[in-house]
């Protein structure tokens, strides 16, 4: 059993937990994820590692309630436990293995959307720890939905919050903020974008135009997370890759987002579909009737 040491609600539908998992904490790096399972009958749910404490042996996860399983998970309190907690899975972000001096010469932009602020945080923190100041854009629907602001401010070089409804920071989507920063003369060597697939898709369309190499973190449906089932397969250029072992981070300009978004729908429950429609707007194709998850 993996004990929950802290459980906190960050915003409407967004929750944070610190979980005891010493093996994972000892070996994880930014960019990796875990798979959690609540009880005997629960699903295996992939979640990005948001923070870790190697000494105490804990992992921080941040999740949004989407369908039945994540709603159930939101009811867990400090003192409760997960039956299973596997990780770290996937590959660390590319920069973890790069030469620090050459990284220092790069101008790096992080773009997070919604709960995507959680996976972006450990990467920005890693940069800070290695003496690198990066620019961070965090988008959310409205001010109340913005998460991890003080944490992110503490580690970011420049921090640019954006809200769709203009209640805080830059008014508008993250893409308009990127355009603005580019117009103001910022020349980025690399961009890391993490958030809903639809956001990553539009960020990639833009950064391609702006000629900024872009890394995205893909969150397809997964089962085992070890390369055994192929549920997480994606087209990256002409190649098929398994997100759980080859990723989850990929060159965003090679990802086939339209296909990935369709695949993500496969088992959506009603709540899940409603949530995704909210996140992904008009690109959502609900009501296909094929959904096996509506039970």
């Amino acid at each position, binding site marked *: 059993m993996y004990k929950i040491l802290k459980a906190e609600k960050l915003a409407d539908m967004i929750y944070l937990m610190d979980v005891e998992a010493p093996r994972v904490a000892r070996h994880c790096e930014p960019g990796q994820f875990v798979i959690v399972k609540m009880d005997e009958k629960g699903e295996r749910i992939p979640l990005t590692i948001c923070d870790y404490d190697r000494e105490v042996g804990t992992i921080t996860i941040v999740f949004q309630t989407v369908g*039945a399983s994540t709603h159930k998970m939101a009811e867990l309190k400090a003192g409760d436990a997960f039956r*299973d907690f596997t990780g770290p899975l996937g590959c660390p972000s590319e920069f973890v293995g790069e030469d620090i001096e050459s990284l220092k010469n790069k101008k790096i932009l992080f773009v997070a959307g919604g709960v995507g602020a959680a996976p972006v945080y450990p990467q920005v923190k890693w940069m800070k720890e290695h003496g690198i100041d990066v620019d961070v854009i965090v988008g959310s629907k409205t001010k109340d939905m913005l998460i991890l602001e003080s944490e992110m401010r503490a580690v970011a070089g420049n921090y640019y919050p954006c809200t769709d409804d203009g209640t805080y920071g830059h008014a508008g989507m993250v893409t308009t903020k990127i355009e603005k920063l580019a117009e103001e003369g910022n020349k980025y060597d690399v961009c890391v974008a993490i958030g809903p697939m639809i956001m990553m898709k539009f960020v990639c369309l833009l950064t391609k135009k702006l000629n900024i190499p872009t890394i995205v973190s893909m969150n397809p449906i997964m089962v*085992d997370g070890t390369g055994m089932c192929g*549920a997480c*397969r994606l087209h990256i250029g002409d190649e*098929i890759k398994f997100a759980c072992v080859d990723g989850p981070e990929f060159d965003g300009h090679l990802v086939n987002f339209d296909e990935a978004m369709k*695949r993500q729908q496969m088992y959506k429950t009603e709540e899940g579909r409603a949530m995704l429609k909210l996140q992904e707007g008009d690109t959502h194709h609900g009501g*296909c009737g094929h959904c*096996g998850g509506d039970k």
Partner: protein
Amino acid sequence: MADVLKRVPVREQDAKVRATNFEEVCYGYNMEEAMEEASRCLNCKNAKCIQGCPVSINIPGFISKIKEGNIEEAYKVIGESSALPAICGRVCPQESQCECKCIRGIKGEPVSIGKLERFVADYALENDIKPVKAEKTNGHKVAVIGSGPSGLTCAGDLAKLGYEVTVFEALHELGGVLVYGIPEFRLPKQKVVKKEIEKVKELGVKFETNVVIGKSTTIDQLMEEEDFEAVFIGSGAGLPMFMGIPGETANGVFSANEYLTRSNLMKAFDSSYDTPIAAGKKVAVVGGGNVAMDAARTALRLGAEVHIVYRRSEAELPARVEEVHHAKEEGVIFDLLTNPKEILVDENGWVKGMKVIKMELGEPDASGRRRPMEIPGSEYEIELDTVIMSLGTSPNPLIASTTKGLETNRRKCIVAEEENGQTSKACVFAGGDAVTGAATVILAMGAGKAGAKGIHELLSRK
């Protein structure tokens, strides 16, 4: 008196009924039937059947104990060579191993060795006959990676010799393919697999689930940071292959591994479990091996019309005859000499059909099987909502790529000596599907035994 040329028939669930449930197909023998079948064995001096068994079980030896009605003794005889008899008795391809060599088979039907083995093992499980535990530990620590048949056997053998063994398993359940691949209706999980694993636990073996070696920790770290003196790799061949035809990433296309894992490991067929499965109404399973039969029969039980699409003819089907026979009885349709060309996808990204082409068999190829060739112009389309790809698997590169000095071959298999499991890296041993590529439970078990022997030879010299 029954005809000695014929086997005592084994009772099975009716085909129509079982096609709608996940209960075990075969009921196995009872004491009376087992003793009658045992009486058919000629107790040959130079028993050919033993040569056919990869772990050389003393077959006439255990069968003669059944004749006497002494099942506990029979269990001990099997136990000298096999650690998982309740499993092998069910899933071994006996018709090409022990039973195909049986003298009785020349004139009539061979002795039902597998069913007898299963009877003895089930009797031991029901009557809680325990394996013998080591008196005290010898202080040597060994790590075993993977809890499939090779890992379980290696761990069990070492524990009997007094080693302190820890098994590390990536998934949340123990058993490898036995729990995630082979379906409930062929191999009951609670009644058989779990109990066989309990026995390994009783020998003092420790198990840690949710540890992915190569990610959660590495082999080098296990030896350097956690003081394991030797490591056995039994990580299987779990990586699924796809065909590389258009449409393969559409919704409704699964690897057999995913489909079976959702149904077996995650129990999607049981609505009290949370994991969903898109069962499908009309399903094509591409491939002709055991895995394809299991996927097809699972889809059938989830309510679908199921077609096996296989590019050669019935004679070349690599699956066990018993499984093909069962699949047919249950209503699986075989589209033989047929090969997929393209998966057809609707505007929402879901499978709507498959374009296939008819095949004919040409000259034998390197494998000795006649090579399938396309018949030009014979393409046609079939309407479907689900396609399950069952084209085989290869070893996962995760461990090889994170272990310094561990040699693999062209097929990504770990290179290891057959007789003791020694790899190219000191103190690291391997066996099972990770070394041979996808094979059988009994071969994996044999490799686990060999690995245990190799590790014992190494550490007892220390």
